[in-house]
């Protein structure tokens, strides 16, 4: 019976020390790092058909079983994370007791011999008498250190002081922040959702589609897009897109706000983000040719680019005397050597000498004409469509009650790291012994981390004390 207990005890103890070991930590951290690579090599959450085509039936089955296509949510990846959490918790509990003893110790012990033996000790002498010296130094040290005390040692005194005990808690802050973060993520994934919806201008909806599953999801309110507007830079890249949204509850407007990228609506725990936009007719171009268009002509000889506005069947003088150009047609879905190139203008270029050439100018590929290798490269920069095209706004709609916890974890992690990395628990001993008519002083100390910093602090302290002793004497 007794023996049995002992064995169980041993067994538990070794299990405990397994979960408390740093060896396990590095193994888990490096395994997480190594396994995370997989998901960056194999794009995640694509459609099964794409994977099937890419890997063939056998590999597809194997990878499917191992959840490789959604690995960051797979049981094995999540188990590793849980193992990390257990490791952190057990390790913290294991050490907290020792740390607690150090932090709450009323009478910390200073082993003077240890301090005397340190290589980093600083020594100086002074003519001051031991008593004054003791009081001056004690005053000085208690200003800088939270704990400070004087004891008699041999014929003199030792002042012991320390500060920054609490900084030993910093590392617990870092570790705990990881647990907080993961709980936040768990709360988010269990009670939140993430979806998207496209709403045409002037229309309203209360149903979005969930990410990954694509299932419809009903919101507690409807979103109406009053207006959508997009501005462009000179380069043609979008500069800003903005949707005028109204939230409706039971048909009644409850909130009216413009959303732009990086400035979402937050209402009743649900966030609405501007994420994309598009034209309602999408890639199907209007059958009618554009009324007016702007062309650029780039001279191959000089490299100069000229921009000219024109209409259909209007003859254009090409600059630098390179001939004339007429746009004589529009193809809504043009083909070039069997390739679909979308809507395009067709035209005829007549050089000053030589035969007229026919030229195709796809609206979507402004560099297309460079392939012709002519004396002038023509591109369409802007084609006015007769109808005003209608836009839809693409919104991302999310709810994540865990975000607060996650952000708390973020703050805790940063603060914890700062405390751990740049602060330390410092202990200092100043020993004053009578020496001839004055005293000889030793300044020594140690810190639980950042030894170089401690060394500098000690030198500074010794310097300061020596100065005080000199001034006090005069």
């Amino acid at each position: 019976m007794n023996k049995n207990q002992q064995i169980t005890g041993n067994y538990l103890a070794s299990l405990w020390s397994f979960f408390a070991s740093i060896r396990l930590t590095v193994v888990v951290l490096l395994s997480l790092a190594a396994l995370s690579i997989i998901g960056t090599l194999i794009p995640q959450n694509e459609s099964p058909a794409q994977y099937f085509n890419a890997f063939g039936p056998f590999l597809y089955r194997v990878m499917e079983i191992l959840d490789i296509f959604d690995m960051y949510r797979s049981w094995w990846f999540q188990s590793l994370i849980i193992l990390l959490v257990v490791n952190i918790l057990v390790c913290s509990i294991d050490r907290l007791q020792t740390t607690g003893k150090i932090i709450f110790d009323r009478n910390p012990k200073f082993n003077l011999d240890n301090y005397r033996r340190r290589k980093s000790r600083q020594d100086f002498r002074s003519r001051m008498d031991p008593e004054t010296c003791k009081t001056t130094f004690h005053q000085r040290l208690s200003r800088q250190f939270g704990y400070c005390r004087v004891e008699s040692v041999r014929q003199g005194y030792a002042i012991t002081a320390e500060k920054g005990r609490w900084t030993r808690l910093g590392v617990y802050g870092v570790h705990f922040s990881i647990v907080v973060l993961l709980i936040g993520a768990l709360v988010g994934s269990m009670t939140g959702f993430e979806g998207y919806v496209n709403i045409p201008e002037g229309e309203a909806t209360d149903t979005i589609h969930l990410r990954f599953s694509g299932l419809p999801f009903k919101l507690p309110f409807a979103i109406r897009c009053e207006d959508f507007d997009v501005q462009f830079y000179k380069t043609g890249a979008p500069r800003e897109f903005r949707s005028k949204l109204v939230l409706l509850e039971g048909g009644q407007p409850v909130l009216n706000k413009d959303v732009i990228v990086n400035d979402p609506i937050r209402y009743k725990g649900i966030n609405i983000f501007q994420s994309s936009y598009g034209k309602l007719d999408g890639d199907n171009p209007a059958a009618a040719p554009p009324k007016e268009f702007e062309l650029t002509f780039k001279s191959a000889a000089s490299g100069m680019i000229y921009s000219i506005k024109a209409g259909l069947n209007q003859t254009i003088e090409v600059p630098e005397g390179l001939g004339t150009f007429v746009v004589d047609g529009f193809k809504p879905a043009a083909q070039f050597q069997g390739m679909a190139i979308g809507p395009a203008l067709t035209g005829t270029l007549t050089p000053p000498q030589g035969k007229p050439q026919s030229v195709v100018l796809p609206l979507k590929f402004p560099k297309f004409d460079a392939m012709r290798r002519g004396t002038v490269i023509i591109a369409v920069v802007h084609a006015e469509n007769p109808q005003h095209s209608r836009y839809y706004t693409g919104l991302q709609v999310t709810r994540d009650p865990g975000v607060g916890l996650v952000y708390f974890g973020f703050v805790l992690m940063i603060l914890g790291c700062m405390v751990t990395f740049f602060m330390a628990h410092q202990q200092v001993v100043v020993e004053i012994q009578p020496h001839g008519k004055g005293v000889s002083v030793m300044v020594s100390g140690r810190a639980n981390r950042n030894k170089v910093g401690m060394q500098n602090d000690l030198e500074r302290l010794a310097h300061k004390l020596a100065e005080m002793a000199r001034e006090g004497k005069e």
Partner: protein
Amino acid sequence: MHYNTLILSVVTFIYGLAAVLYLFSWVFHKEAPGKLATWVTLLACIGNAAGIALRWYESYQLGGGYGHAPLSNIYESLTFFSLTIGVLYLGIERRYGNRVIGVFALPLAFFALAYASFGTNDQIQPLIPALKSNWLIAHVISCFIGYAAFAVGSGAGLLYLLKDKGTFNISTLGRRLLWVLSILIWVLAAGALLFIVYALFFHFQTKMSGLPGLSMVLAGLKPLAGLYIKIYRWVGLPLGAAFPNVFATFLVVCGVICALFYLDADSAVFKLLPELNIVDELTHQLIMFGFLLLTVGIITGSVWANSAWGRYWGWDPKETWSFITWLIYAALLHFRMMRGWRGKRIAVLSIVGFAAVLFTYFGVNLLPGLHSYGAMKG
């Protein structure tokens, strides 16, 4: 015509000069070039900062909503990266009073800027809507200061390996082979470096034609650079604009290492290296500093993603790789607490960690089906 790119091109040469001076001072035990190198580095940092500030100003001069803090594309982040390396290194030099680390740190600043100058698009581009966020600025700044700390940390790690006697237990034959190898590598590296210098001057000329003397320098360099190009074509190596940079960095590092391995462990060159425990401490300090900034960088990036797309983490490859880097450094910090794991192994890990940083920054774009830096997600 933008003067910022011109200034930053000039600064590239100044960093290069400083690197050469540091190397010279170390190998030939001369104090004077080392002192000069410090001043040259300071000059380079000032020029670098001025270039960045000017770019900021010029982006607003362009009008049309182009104005933004210059931290939004590869070119801009690399110029910031080299500035951080320079400043960080000067800080360390002051604190530790040793110039040898400059031999490893300054080439990184040089190559980062050289790569930026002619491996990437240096035009001022307007910001797409998703990039207009103060969180993004905080994200880029802290990530790159962190990366710079890791870069210098890996340099310190390398130093450690060089200084550590155990590393040099090789036979005479091995030593001779290394000697031959290092000569070979240096010949190749010299070619690549020459090509970089040529390309930079060329870049210079297109930026500011008619600079007196420049065409002469170019004419002088051209046959040599042409020879280099011929050899590389012949061997069948790729010759994209960015390639010689990456390649030369690699070669120079290999070359220095091989050359040093050839030396005896108690050769005078190693005497100048700081003490092992100081290098170890320095590596640790740099990695802690870098880890904090990488953490802040990932967190601010995450807050940015949450304000732009409504999710703070999406396992996007770039995110995942920064997470991998973070894990490697976290593991490294814990390795130090295990018995027998200080020193050499940490030095090796600091180099592995920096390789992960490089991959996060440059390699992710090579992965299948991804968006490039700052592309619109979601």
